[in-house]
C-alpha cells in the first residue's frame, strides 16, 4: 500500500488570513482507499486545511495535487468534477429545499453545465434523482425525503450534511467533524457510516472523538497551531512521545489511552 501514489497530496501548504498564518508548511499524502483522520485542538487549522484542499480558500503558498494533477489554483466548484467532495462542520444545507432536492443538487454538481440548460426539466428517473434516492437509503433518511432540510432534527441534518458529499460520488470524501453536536447514540451510527464509506471511497475526516479516530483510521495526522505535529498509524500516534506530551501537557481534549 505504501508504494501506491497518493490520491491527494499537499506540499508545503500555507494559508494566511491577513496577518494571521492559519496554516503553514503542511505536507500531506492521502493514500487511495484508506481512512485518514485529522485530529488536533480547536483552532489547530484542521478546517482551514479542508478549505484549502477543497478550494474554498486559496492557498497562500504550496501546492495541492489530486491524482497527480495540480489543482492548487482551481476554484472549489471546479474540483468537484475531479472527484473530491466535502461536508461542513457547521451544517450548511439548502434549508428551504427538501432533503431529496438537496441530494439531487449535490449529485448534479458533478455535471453542473447540464443544469445550465433552462429548458431541461428535472426527470424523476434522471441520474441525479436516482443517486439522491440511493444516498437517502444508505443514510437511512428516506422517510424524510420530502421534508424541508431546515426542519430536520440536528442528527438528521448532520447525516444529510455527510450525504451531500456522498451524492457527488467522489473518489475522495472529506468530512469535517461529522459527529459535531451529535448525541451519543447518533455517534455510533455515524462511526458505522464512515467505516462503510471507507469501503468504496478514500475518506479524510476531522474528528474529536478518539473512539472513532483510533478505531477506524488507517492513518492519523495530528495538527497543532497550523502545522502537522505527527502522522502515522493509530498505534504509532498513540505511542508517540511528542503526541503524548502534547496531549498530557496542554493541547488536547484529554488524554489518549
Amino acid at each position: 500500500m505504501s508504494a501506491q501514489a497518493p490520491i491527494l497530496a499537499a506540499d508545503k501548504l500555507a494559508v494566511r488570513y491577513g496577518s494571521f498564518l492559519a496554516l503553514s508548511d503542511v505536507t500531506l499524502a492521502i493514500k487511495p482507499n484508506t481512512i485518514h483522520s485529522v485530529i488536533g485542538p480547536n483552532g489547530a487549522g484542521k478546517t482551514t486545511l479542508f478549505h484549502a484542499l477543497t478550494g474554498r480558500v486559496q492557498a497562500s503558498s504550496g501546492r495541492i495535487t489530486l491524482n497527480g494533477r495540480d489543482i492548487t489554483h482551481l476554484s472549489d466548484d471546479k474540483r468537484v468534477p475531479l472527484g473530491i467532495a466535502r461536508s461542513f462542520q457547521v451544517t450548511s444545507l439548502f434549508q428551504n429545499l427538501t432533503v431529496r432536492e438537496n441530494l439531487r443538487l449535490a449529485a448534479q454538481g458533478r455535471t453542473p453545465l447540464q443544469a445550465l440548460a433552462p429548458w431541461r426539466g428535472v426527470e424523476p428517473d434522471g441520474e441525479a434523482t436516482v443517486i439522491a434516492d440511493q444516498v437517502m437509503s444508505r443514510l437511512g433518511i428516506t422517510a424524510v425525503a420530502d421534508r424541508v432540510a431546515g426542519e430536520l432534527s440536528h442528527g438528521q441534518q448532520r447525516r444529510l450534511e455527510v450525504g451531500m458529499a456522498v451524492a457527488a460520488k467522489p473518489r475522495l470524501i472529506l468530512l469535517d467533524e461529522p459527529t459535531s453536536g451529535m448525541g451519543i447514540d447518533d455517534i455510533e451510527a455515524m462511526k458505522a457510516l464512515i467505516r462503510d464509506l471507507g469501503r468504496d471511497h478514500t475518506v479524510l475526516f476531522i474528528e474529536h472523538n478518539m473512539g472513532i479516530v483510533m478505531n477506524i483510521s488507517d492513518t492519523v495526522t495530528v495538527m497543532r497551531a497550523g502545522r502537522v505535529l505527527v502522522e502515522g498509524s493509530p498505534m504509532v500516534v498513540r505511542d508517540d512521545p511528542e503526541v503524548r506530551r502534547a496531549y498530557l501537557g496542554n493541547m488536547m481534549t484529554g488524554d489518549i489511552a
Partner: protein
Amino acid sequence: MNRSSLHFILAAIVAVALPLFMRSGTLASEVLIYAMAASACNLLLGYTGLLSFGQGIFFGLGSYVVGLTLLHTPLPLGLAILFSIVIGALVATGVGWLSIRRQGVYFVMLTLAFSQFFYFLAYTFKDITGGDNGLLNIPRPDVGPLVLRSSWAYYAFIAIIFLLIFATLQRVASSTFGRTLLAIRDNEERARAIGFPVRTFKITAFAISGAVTGLAGALHALLIGVAPLSNIDYHMSESILIMTIIGGTGNLFASVLGAGFYVIVSDLLSTIWPRWLLLLGGLLVVVALFMQQGLWGLLERIILALRPASRTAAGKEPGRSPL
C-alpha cells in the same frame, strides 16, 4: 393539477379578462407588458436572490432598438423585436457579469449605477435617441396578415406573446437551471462547494431576464409609438422592482398581480390626485412592514382564512402553500 399549470391558467384568465374590465386597450397592454418585465425581475430577485436596480436599462434599450430598427431599416416588426430581445440579453450579460463581482448591497448599488450610466448615455447621444424628447414616430407595422393598428388588436398580439413568455419563464423556473438558481439563492457557498459555477448561473439568469425585459420594452415603445427617455431612467428600474416586490417573489404569477395592481392603481389615482405618488410611497412602507409576502401572500392568507378545511391539509405538508 399542479401549481405551475394553475398559475398559467390564472395568467391566461388575466389576459382574457383585462379587455372585459378596462376601457383602454393601451392600459390593458401596459399591464401585460409590465407583467413580463416584473416576471423577469422576479427571476432574478425571487429565484436567484439578486436585487437588480438595473431592469430599466434592458427595458429602455428594448424600446430604442425596436424604434431605431423600424425607423432606419426596412426590416419587419418580428425581426426588430428579436433585436430588442438579443440586445437586452447581451447588455444584461455584461451588466450582470460586472455587477455580480460584488455581493449584497454593493451589488444593488452597482446595478443602480449602471442604470444611471445608460440613462446618461441615452441622454447624451441625442442624435440617436432623441434625448429628452424621446425617439418619436415609431411605426407599428403589420405582422404578415396580422393588422395591429387598433389598440385592441395590438393587445391581442401582446397577450399571445405574454402567455408564451409566461409559460417559457415557468419552464425556466422549474428546470434544473431554475432549481439550481433556488439553491444558489438559499446557500450560495454550498452551491459552489457541490460544484456549481455560481457566477455562470447568475449571469445566465441575467441574460434571460434581460431578454424578456428588452422584449417588454420593445412592446411598450410600439404601444405608445415613442421610445421615451423615461423608459431607461432610474424610475423605470424602480417601478419594475416595486411591482415585483408588491406582487411577491414566491412565484411568477405574483409578478403579474404586482404589475396589474401597480399599473391600474396608479392610473386610477393619478386621475384623481396628481400627487398620488405620496400614497404609493406610503404603500411601500406598509408592504415592507406588514405584507412581506406581497399581494400573493395576502391572497394566500385570505384564502386560508376563508377555507378552514384547507388549513389542516396545508399543515400536513410543511412549506406548502394552498395554491
